[in-house]
């Protein structure tokens, strides 16, 4: 038992939590952005037209493509900032879960229609 706990500390130093935290937070941001772009496309005709990347699929093509681009950009940026660092991963994870929860909630049409 003691061997494992003593080997954990150097291992955590060698393997900082920053890259993992970056991936987790970016996934939360990506999930949230799906809902935000969907609401924007639903509420504004001009944005709906802009989101029409592929006509047979309609605005859904732009909504999801934009959300994926934001997700990957956020991931790249956070990874660049945190790749060699240990961050407060508990707070980062909490923020990611809140964004994920909002993503699920705001894609539900009766709630999205409130805006």
């Amino acid at each position, binding site marked *: *038992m003691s061997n*494992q*706990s003593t080997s*954990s500390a150097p*291992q*955590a130093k060698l*393997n900082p*939590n920053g*890259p*993992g*935290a970056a*991936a*987790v937070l*970016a*996934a939360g941001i*990506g*999930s949230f952005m*799906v*809902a935000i772009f*969907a609401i924007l496309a639903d509420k504004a005709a001009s944005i709906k037209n802009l989101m029409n990347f*592929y006509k*047979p*699929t*309609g605005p*859904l*093509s732009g*909504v*999801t493509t934009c*959300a*994926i681009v934001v*997700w990957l950009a956020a991931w790249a940026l956070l990874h660049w900032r945190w790749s060699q660092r240990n961050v407060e*991963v*508990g707070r*980062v*994870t909490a923020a*990611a*879960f809140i964004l*994920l929860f909002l*993503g*699920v909630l705001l*894609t*539900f*049409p*009766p709630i999205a229609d409130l805006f």
Partner: protein
Amino acid sequence: MEITTRGLWTMIHGMGFGALYLLACSGALVELYRRYRSPLGPEIKEEDERFLRIYLTAMAVLAWITVLTGAYIIYPWYRAVPPPGTASLAAFPQRLLMSSPSTAAWHSIGMEWKEHVAWLVPISITMAAVVFSQYRRSLRIHPELRAAVVGFVWASLLAAGISGFFGAMLNKTAPVTGGSTITFVQGAQK
């Protein structure tokens, strides 16, 4: 016994990729919980870890294939606009659902939610696969990261479940049909 090409694609998307993803989720959650929940648990073998890494990566690929076939192959058939004067809306599922107050909510709530919430699945599982591949057994000494991976796999299961439920109900109420007919077996006439 025959099926249309559009019906076949819908079946591949839902009963093939989608259902397989839902099944795979339970396996991933069991493995993550059983092997990685405690830093003091039994030693994890290299081949078991490699298996889970490949398993999660395959789930991510499956999730992307599911949403991409849904959005870019089936959804255009679903939302097709009938030409003026069309008598039967059977080949235009969205319009068929919206033509009756008793079925309109299957589109306005069911499809509207499904088409967006489904994209949370590949985002979540891609993150889980990447974080697991990066940290492997050291996830045991990063409990918050492990909780995030498990939490996002649960979320992907929820989102895939919502999408799968509405997909099945939509296809039951207004199936996507059309295209050429594929005959599997010619039955004997009685």
